[in-house]
């Protein structure tokens, strides 16, 4: 990339005669080491058009294929997105959204039909997406108690100050405390495949494997009390205000209940940007040759519990296949192609410049 010469400066062949007569004078003499004399052997590269040229071509040649590969991969990914916010009168969820009240004990259900034009072959990942939801707001981000979530009994009984104003109700600690936990996404999404013969087949949704392994097994832990019963362990705490069920009733499976409920863990990983999506369920590929989601009509059934209208938010459900590079994102591919092309183009420009000015410089040097 940048190289011209490796000039090893040899140390001065200056050998001082050390005689007994030298005495104190000799001690003052600086040592003749390469470091102290600033003559360490060194590689001295300089960036000139000549040295940088090949690098530009090489970058161009490497980046453009990578970019094309990424772009193609991204294009092959199938993604389906449906907005079910319901702020539109035509939307099936309009009523649910309009009539939302925190006091509703019975959840409102709405049904959204949709159609997949292409079959989804491999595992399909089901996401929910929120917009205009500031999960990265500072007050929000810090409003959690990691030590409570890690199963610390003391923190369970006395949540951290950071959780305020979601730390306790009537002097009873909230478990899990904090704004993040309190605002956990609680819509329930169900998928049904409408068979051409008229029957509606529920599609099995896997709710495990959606959170980071390390989060599930290390970072989040249920508090261990005297007995293994979660209900007893959480005795003395109250559920977050906006929750319908306490934390120990999130799932029936004991491996997915309490703090180690994967929906909860996924929610607790705060998103970077105000428009985000989170993994909700995985539709595993069946073992036969049939596509995971064949072409056809589907129905999304939503238990509408989560209000977003107050902050002009939107809710979406996304179905996506995944490649080695993740979901659909043409950015990386385009960026690679662009940068590669720019480098290549610059290479050509530099070639011209080098040709034009290189000679002139050489002649100038000679005249000097």
């Amino acid at each position, binding site marked *: 990339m940048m190289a011209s010469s*490796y000039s090893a400066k040899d140390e001065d062949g200056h050998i001082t005669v050390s005689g007994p007569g030298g005495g*104190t004078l000799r001690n003052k003499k600086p040592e003749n080491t390469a470091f102290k004399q600033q003559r*360490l052997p060194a590689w001295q590269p*300089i960036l000139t058009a000549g040295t940088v040229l090949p690098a530009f071509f090489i970058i161009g040649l490497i980046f453009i294929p990578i970019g094309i590969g990424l772009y193609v991969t991204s294009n092959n990914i199938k993604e389906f997105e449906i907005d079910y916010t319901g702020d539109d009168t035509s939307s099936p969820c309009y009523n649910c959204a309009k009539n939302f009240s925190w006091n509703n004990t019975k959840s409102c259900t709405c049904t959204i039909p949709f159609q997949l034009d292409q079959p989804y072959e491999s595992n399909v990942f089901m996401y929910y997406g929120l917009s205009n939801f500031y999960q990265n707001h500072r007050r929000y981000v810090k409003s959690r108690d990691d030590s409570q979530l890690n199963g610390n009994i003391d923190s369970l009984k006395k949540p951290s100050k950071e959780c305020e*104003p979601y730390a306790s109700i009537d002097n009873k600690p909230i478990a899990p405390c904090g*704004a993040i936990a309190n605002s956990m996404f609680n819509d329930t999404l169900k998928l049904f495949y409408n068979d051409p013969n008229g029957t509606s087949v529920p599609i099995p949704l896997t709710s495990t494997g959606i959170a980071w392994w390390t989060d599930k097994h290390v970072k989040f832990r249920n508090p261990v009390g005297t007995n293994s019963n979660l209900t007893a362990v959480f005795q003395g705490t109250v559920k977050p205000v906006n929750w319908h069920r306490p934390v120990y009733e999130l799932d029936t499976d004991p491996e997915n209940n309490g703090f180690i409920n994967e929906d909860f863990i996924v929610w607790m990983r705060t998103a970077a940007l*105000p*428009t985000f999506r989170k993994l909700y369920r995985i539709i595993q590929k069946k073992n036969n040759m049939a596509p995971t989601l064949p072409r056809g009509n589907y129905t999304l059934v939503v238990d509408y519990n989560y209000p977003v209208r107050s902050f002009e938010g939107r809710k979406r459900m996304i179905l*996506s296949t995944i490649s080695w590079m993740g979901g659909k994102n043409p950015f990386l591919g385009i960026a690679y192609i662009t940068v590669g092309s720019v480098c290549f183009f610059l290479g050509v420009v530099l070639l011209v410049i*080098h040709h034009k000015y290189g000679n002139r410089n050489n002649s100038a040097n000679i005249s000097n």
Partner: protein
Amino acid sequence: MDFSLLRNIISRYCVGEEIWVDSRTVYIGHKEPPPGAEAYIPQRYPDNRIVSSKYTFWNFIPKNLFEQFRRIANFYFLVIFLVQLIIDTPTSPVTSGLPLFFVITVTAIKQGYEDWLRHKADCSINECPVDVVQQGKVVRTQSHKLRVGDIVVVKEDETFPCDLILLSSSRSDGTCYVTTTSLDGESSHKTYYAIPDTMAFRTEQEVDSLHATIECEQPQPDLYKFVGRINIYKDKEEPVARPLGAENLLLRGATLKNTQHIYAVAVYTGMETKMALNYQSKSQKRSAVEKSMNAFLIVYLCILISKAVINTVLKYAWQWSPDRDEPWYNHRTEHERQRHVVIRAFTDFLAFMVLFNYIIPVSMYVTVEMQKFLGSYFISWDEEMFDEELGEGAQVNTSDLNEELGQVEYVFTDKTGTLTENNMEFIECCVDGNVYIPHAICNGQILSAASSIDMIDSSPGGYRREYEDLFFRALCLCHTVQVKEEETVDGIKRGIHQGRPTSFYISSSPDEVALVEGMKRLGYTYLRLKDNYMEILNKDDEIERFELLHVLNFDSVRRRMSVIVKSSSGKISSNTGLFIGCSSCSWLYGYLFCVLPGDYLLFCKGADSSIFPRVVSGKVEQVKARVEQNAVEGLRTLCVAYRRLSQSEYQEACHHLMEAKLALQDREQRLAQAYDIIERDFVLLGATAVEDRLQEKAADTIESLHKAGMKVWVLTGDKMETAAATCYASKLFRRTTQILELTKKRTEEQSLHDVLFELNRTVLRQRSISGLSVDCLDFGLIIDGATLSAVLKPNQEGAGHGNYREIFLEICRNCSAVLCCRMAPLQKAQIVKLIKASKEHPITLAIGDGANDVSMILEAHVGIGIMGKEGRQAARNSDYAIPKFKHLKKMLLVHGHYYYIRIAELVQYFFYKNVCFIFPQFLYQFFCGFSQQPLYDTAYLTLYNISFTSLPILLYSLVEQHVSMDTLKREPSLYRDIAKNSLLRWPVFLYWTCLGVFDAVVFFFGAYFLFDNTTFTSNGQMFGNWTFGTLIFTVLVFTVTLKLALDTHHWTWINHFVIWGSLLFYVIFSLLWGGIIWPFLNYQRMYYVFMQMLSSGPAWLSIILLITVSLLPDVIKKVLCRAMCPTATERAQSTRPCLTVEPSTIFMLSQSSSRMSF
């Protein structure tokens, strides 16, 4: 110090209105004066405790903290830290507290340790034993218990515990020898004298019986000045008053030599000793780089504040609607809600300030200081600047100015001892128009003016003899040379006599040594000064003795010295009488005629300008011609004259001198008056010429400095002709140089006004012509001291004649070389000041070797001392000291150049990397509702400047060599490339800042589009905001480090180690930081974030992409600049000889092939 001052004030007040306000009375042995003489006024003086330490045990912490927080940067970080402690801020106080604590602690430990050492040193000094005479007995006590008035006994090789007045010594003549190495660095032995009334005391009892008081001035720091008077009371008589001068005062810190013991009385003690008063730190000089650094800091402070203001305003605009301010999922606490909106807004502003405060890096100051401190070692380590003869290398007294060495535009140099060796050689003398040359010189040499040369051994006519004899005796007598009879004396040493190789002449002036030695070669050997008799071994191996009556010492105003001697009676006369018979008659005649025993003779030698006006007879014309001829040849000339004093004249002179010497006030002035009266009506004897050879490679050095674009000015006290000759020899002036003279001689003919305007016209005309021609004629200006002071004098004639100062500067600006001769020391400083204050504010450098250069060394931006023969004062007061003038070349062209580019890169890079660091945080605010959410984890925020990116730049700033040392030395013109602070000008600064902003935008939006509403893992899981920040941070650390790698032109193994090592350290740290649930942290936000990120392919790809994109513009800029308009430095880089080609990389091969194809 303060206490003693207070005490002094109080004591003075108590004493009442006194005539002794400016003097003190010391009662020797604390004995009251006999009643009636004067009122006994017990005065209080500080004890002899030396306190050099700054702190005591109990005030160390508060005082040190106060000192440290007085620095504006430290104070700024303290404020940030306190803000973080008080209000709820996005980052924990640790992020700024830890670095600040680290910096403060390290500095405090360093200063504390130094102070502890000082305490220890103070203690050992204060408690060292001292012998004091009390009631006729020697009592041993501790040094700090010494009081003013105590009589102290000091033995050989002991150091004086305070400032003492010598009473008597073990030597019979009442003298003692002293070295003042620790005070001024001069290792030669100096002689101090006891007053004749007390010098006979031999025992403690005798000393104790002394009844006397000493009146002397209040303590003052000048080492070489002391005025006092001793009043000795003898039974009921009027007290005998004797003058006391610097020759009676033994200074604290000096060491007694060659004398068994002395008795002396303490006059100044403790912090009032001259040594303690001289113990002051010099005024701080600040470099140009530091100034631009501070300017940049202010710009960044403005950016910081405006960023915070913008964000605060936007925040409140954005959250105008309550749903944005407090959506249902994110409520405030009740406490916060109740706060007033103004307070909230102010808190938010402070919080933004805290979030962005890293843009002004705390570590920059530490790094800059470390760079300067460590970097300065390369100067003292430099073997090429080591002088074998002196046994010393370059010495760094301050490391604050390293980079200033690369910015010098004006060099002010002394002549004698700096350009020249100050190694005098007697060349010739001219007696009454006839020239004499010692054998050693004339042997084998062809002399141009052969006709006028008369050898001493040719038989001269009788009439000449008298002058000859007087001349040689004058030179043998009129000096202050001492004879040392040992071998191991440093300083100037010469063997006197073949038979006695252990004897040397020693003098503070090398001219005198050269003269006395020259006399020896001509047959007259000065033997010794014994009991006030000077002994001379004359040509005929006889010893002549002269009684030394008075020495009228040399000073730079009078520029001459005199002695009054009485030719010895009896013995000499009879001796000469005996010799009459066997030696030549004319000689006898001459001798008897002019030096009769018992004659009072005044011999004077000095500069021609100070002798000729006082001469009444003698062959003035011939001597003058010879002197001028010699001066043109670059020789140092002195004129010798004499005057015969009659008994009454002598008495009168004595009277004048004694009166002046006894004066307490204005003694200097009165002495000068006395000298003026005595030194007149001379008979001119002749002149001498002494050669001062040019220093090795002086011409080469000056030529290099010229090529490097520096203007060299020679400031000397020497005569114009001598100085001009030296200038030609040292290539300051060339044959082609057109000399402009601005001298007294010319201004006498024309008015100063006309001369100035004429010169200005000449210069301007030439400039307008040379604008067209390629090689312009260069000008050299010669100005003398008298004219200079006329030019600098404020103009009284009003505005009509314009300002001379400006015209003078205009002329100087157009001259490549300026010679200022006949300069007084203070005038040298004035010139430097004048240039410093001119409108371009150029960086000046002053170099000199003697005490007379100290003022200009202190005045200039950079002061360089030569470890010369005229003592160590210049070296001591300088910023850098070098053994020889030739070392200046490497000092400026190599070291200065390197330091400048190193620190320039250091400063720019620091700002750049912090823009890269902080700007993404600023952008992130737009996506997190202006909530001050930090982008990076606390650990990253804290360690970014401390460890991830600190070492590579520190190392770069220590070892970078963009061009090889030999190239820099070979091509001095490269120095012009960095002139005028070119790497730290605003456009460059703007470029770096823009680069930083661009990189930050690339990092942020690269990551933004990658994260935008999608996943990039192969298992469909999502990443959160901490992964977002970590991705940006990783790109940031790599980009910033690689940017430095691109700028590095000198890759030693240490560079490789540090650059790759610090990247590796970042990776390892991140793995570790995210790999464990840290028990002491109340959040685990970074747990596995880094590893999860690395498990994703697109993350890797985007890291590579973003690094490439951010580095691209800088590479392109570099390449284009080099190709289109390469600077001289860049040309020099590319013409570097390729010694070996390393075939290891594929790039190298393709590059060489591409080179072939073009």
